């Protein structure tokens, strides 16, 4: 009994040690970036080793006040708008698609599954030329909605992960509900949706993060500086603007971290597994 206890204690110690190491690995580069953004000199080469020698809030103040050339607040608003809309529409489409592909057996289903898998393998930058021309023909250059359209319509391509999730939810409850006379739409809305929170949160996070940090598409489709997203804007910074770059990069991570903490609850205890199985 005693050895069991020590074993458990040892296990806990080892676990925590690994966790601390892992957290350090993930934290360190981020910490470096955060501290760099508070550097007073603005140049990374005046650092002592990893960290700046002097700190100040100037870069952050500059980031939000010195907007003549680099209008960070505006980039931020643009990005927030694009990412939020793409996230809402994209998540909706992905979840529905995945659910359908998991629950309905219809003609052409396996074909669709194989096709989507294969399509993902085509080197994407080759298709950019086509995307650009399509957007010019539809008059969607310099329009944020054009970008949202592309992000959200591309999202269902990644439904396989979500389908894998729905595959693990037993069909027995659906059946019961259907016997009670619910339509398929109601079954989805009332029964499956509530227990799918973890995967919805995961989907929402990924479909928010992608437009949030992508710079190829916005660079391609948004020509006007006023429409820049943060990623494009940061890439257009001059070479000596490192502190501003770091500050911009740090600030861009804030919404995602907040989003994560808000959604964490759903991610972890979204579903009480035992209740359904049995």
């Amino acid at each position: 009994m005693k050895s069991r206890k020590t074993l458990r204690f040892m296990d806990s110690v080892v676990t925590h040690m690994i966790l601390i190491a892992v957290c350090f690995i993930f934290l360190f580069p981020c910490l470096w970036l955060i501290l760099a953004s508070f550097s007073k000199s603005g140049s990374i080469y005046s650092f002592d080793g990893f960290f700046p020698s002097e700190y100040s809030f100037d870069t952050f103040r500059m980031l939000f006040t010195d907007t003549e050339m680099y209008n960070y607040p505006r980039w931020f608003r643009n990005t927030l708008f694009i990412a939020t809309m793409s996230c809402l529409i994209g998540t909706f489409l992905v979840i529905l698609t995945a659910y359908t592909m998991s629950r309905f057996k219809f003609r052409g289903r396996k074909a669709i599954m194989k096709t989507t898998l294969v399509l993902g393998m085509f080197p994407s930058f080759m298709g950019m030329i086509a995307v650009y021309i399509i957007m010019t023909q539809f008059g969607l250059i310099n329009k944020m909605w054009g970008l949202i359209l592309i992000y959200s319509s591309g999202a269902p391509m990644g439904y396989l992960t979500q389908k894998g999730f729905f595959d693990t939810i037993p069909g027995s409850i659906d059946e019961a509900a259907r016997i009670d006379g619910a339509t398929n739409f109601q079954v989805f809305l009332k029964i499956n949706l509530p227990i799918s929170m973890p995967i919805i949160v995961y989907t929402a996070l990924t479909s928010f993060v992608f437009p949030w940090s992508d710079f190829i598409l916005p660079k391609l489709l948004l020509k006007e500086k006023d429409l820049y997203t943060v990623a494009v804007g940061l890439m257009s910074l001059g070479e000596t603007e490192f502190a501003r770059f770091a500050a911009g990069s740090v600030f861009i991570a804030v919404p995602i971290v907040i989003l994560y903490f808000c959604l964490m609850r759903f991610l972890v205890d979204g579903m009480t597994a035992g209740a359904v199985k049995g």
Partner: protein
Amino acid sequence: MRIKNRTENPQKSVRVSKANKKKMQSESLCTAVKNGGKQVRASMCLMGLGQLLYKQIGKGILYLCVLVLAAFYFVKRGFADIAGLFTLGTKEADTWLGIEGDNSVVMLLMGILSVIAALCFILCYISNIKDVYETQKRVERGGKPATFREDLQQFLDKKFYKTVLFLPILGVCVFNILPIIFMIAIAFTNYGGTIVPPKLVDWVGFNNFVKLATLSQFSPTFLKILNWNIIWAVISTALNYFAGLGLALLLNKECVKGKALWRAFPVLAYAVPGFITLLGFKFMFSYGGPINQIITGMGNKAVGFLDIDAKWIARIIGLLVNAWISVPSIMLLATGLLSNRDVSQMESAKIDGANAFQQFRHITLPFVLFSTTPVLISQFIGNFNNFGIFFFLRGGLYIDGYFLASDTDLLINWLYNLSINNNYYNIGATISLVIFVITSLISLSIYTGSASYREEDTFR
């Protein structure tokens, strides 16, 4: 019970064997044409007319609208676009003389779009005939034609999947499939090099493939890069996947308190956009970067982590940096999945005396593996085509013994050097096509052989 899609009478089809069913469906159009009454023939002449004759006003008008819209589109530009697909333009633009001219690339794209539109129209037309035939059979059996309301309700129930998949499929067609078809078409043209709009592009058949096959510098580099690319894809997929899963399991342990906080660290990494991470790491490993400052500070010689001689060091750094970027998202996914795990199974296993490793090996792993096989495959594909890592970390370098590539370049980086950097879109498209065929065959065979594809019900 799963809802089966049948256009025929459900009672009848239960009796039909599976093999026959498929045959039935492909033949249903023929039988409709053969056995159809006057309403079916009316619909064959004019979309929606049959429905109108059955007093299905709403549906009939919808079909008519589709017809009118299609006719309008094809007269206005559809036919011209299809013709343009063959000619790819006949008049060269000259801005100096004010000649508007044809843009071959736009014509190619719009041509493909109009072909897709034509296919959609044909599908609509067929569905219109089938629909009337369906009604006819229903009336023959003594039923009434379905009202518009009933039809609509079908779309929330039996045909729910059609309703749901309509938008995604439309979007994917326009923004994913159309560009891919476009690129495949490009592989058969001479678009690239000096021939880009306003110059007129032409179809050249298999010339590009012949050119690639006969290029002597090509194959040694191709094999070397392919070799490294496969190693890279396998190792980094395995590394990311197991590290992510391991982390999720570790955080799932009972003894770990404050899980949300622990998890926040990897999420922090996840929150920083990839390109910023890559630029940051590039700087860290550069000669003037902090790591080298520490090394030289201790009196050692600076290490060229990413420089021209750094083959394996650079490759390993690439693997680790990629793991740093990808592990958090896999961890999040695995966390979500683990919360969906059947706890009772674990409990009973524990009672049976299984140790932690056995529990993992026999219960958790199969479960997670099952539901994440698609993720694993998409990770593999993503890593196989991971453009960013070495483009940012070690771009702009050609190494001896490689044809316009460096020893860390993946096929996609090489493709970029060869095609985009040099404007040879046709060659780029050709190589992509070759790579695409190889990779899709591999992953398709893995996928169709996997449990999560064949036995979707395993964990229900």
